[in-house]
């Protein structure tokens, strides 16, 4: 079997991050809707779920989701730019900036959650 192609360039990493974050978010979304839908059964029901979610593992998962959403948004904005705005290079700097902004968003969430 031929080994996989091993090109390493920023555009490919950005695309993989965009795709992976999208898949994980898509999987998460129905559960998010179900959790929020608990409010139908009244405030107390939602509160008991929120109390359950107030544990470290869940908080880390929430941080992960916030970061994934940021990654997906920023990578997506780059794709929209490449496709619809006049071409001015592959905007590789955006990939580094996007990664940093996404990380910062996650950190911000974490800091806010811990306060």
């Amino acid at each position, binding site marked *: 079997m*031929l080994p996989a*192609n*091993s*090109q390493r360039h920023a555009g*490919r990493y950005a695309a993989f991050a965009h795709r992976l974050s999208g898949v994980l978010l898509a999987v998460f979304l129905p559960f998010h809707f179900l959790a929020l839908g608990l409010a139908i059964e009244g405030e107390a029901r939602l509160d008991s779920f929120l109390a359950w979610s107030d544990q470290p593992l869940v908080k880390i998962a929430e941080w992960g989701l916030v970061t994934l959403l940021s990654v997906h948004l920023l990578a997506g904005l780059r794709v929209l730019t*490449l*496709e619809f705005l006049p*071409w001015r290079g592959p905007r590789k700097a955006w990939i580094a900036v996007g990664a940093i902004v996404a990380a910062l968003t996650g950190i911000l969430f974490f800091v806010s959650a811990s306060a």
Partner: protein
Amino acid sequence: MPAGISPFSCANGGGRRYSGIMSNTSSTLDVRIWRGGEDGAFQPFSVPRQEHQTVLDVVTYVQRELDPTLAYRFACRVGMCGSCGMTVNGRPRWTCRTHVETATRGSDVLELAPLRSLPIIRDLVTDMTPFFEKWQTAQGRATGSKTRADDTQKIDPASPRRQAADAAIECINCGVCYAACDVVASDPDYLGPAALNRAWTLMNDDREADRAGVLEAATAGGGCHSCHSHGSCVEHCPVGLNPSAGIAGLKRLSLLAMVGGKI
């Protein structure tokens, strides 16, 4: 340096069988070359290292000195024809224009395989038929409307459309972008960067008489909308073309056509 004359000496040289400065370096390259078809395997060879050695030099040495049954393609060997495309240490490139130093980056290992995403005929030789068939499917061929009795089409070389076409017409169909593209590798329907790049040049060519046909072919299933803008084509094109940008242009034209705009 191996002594003796190979039974495959070239007629016009006698003795000097490979380019590059003969040096007395004692280091050797650990070369692994794909042999056989899809179900083949890598075969190891030891090749003497030389200054300014290109990957094509290495392949040539193997075929002439070590194993005459090795099949590989080349023609001009000076970076003009695009025939020598192969996968070199995981990246698709022209072997005549790739120095061993660049490909190995300080190591002594050189792994050579045929271009990805094309059927393997044998060893390093691929069947380019699917590549050219997709070219046709994208309607990457010009359709004229004038006869010798008509005036020639006036084209302003400085016009944005002509500049867009000029930026993309140097493609010599080497297949490196096709091999580099992840979507080509994972979606058999995808026409690929080269075919769509050609369609883009036709869309910008004032002489093209069937732009509607070209756009329809380029935007069908497997066309430009399958591109995810990874940019591997741009990264690897040895001629410095930008199929990604052309494909983005096709996407914009497609949307324009959808809303009834003039394409």
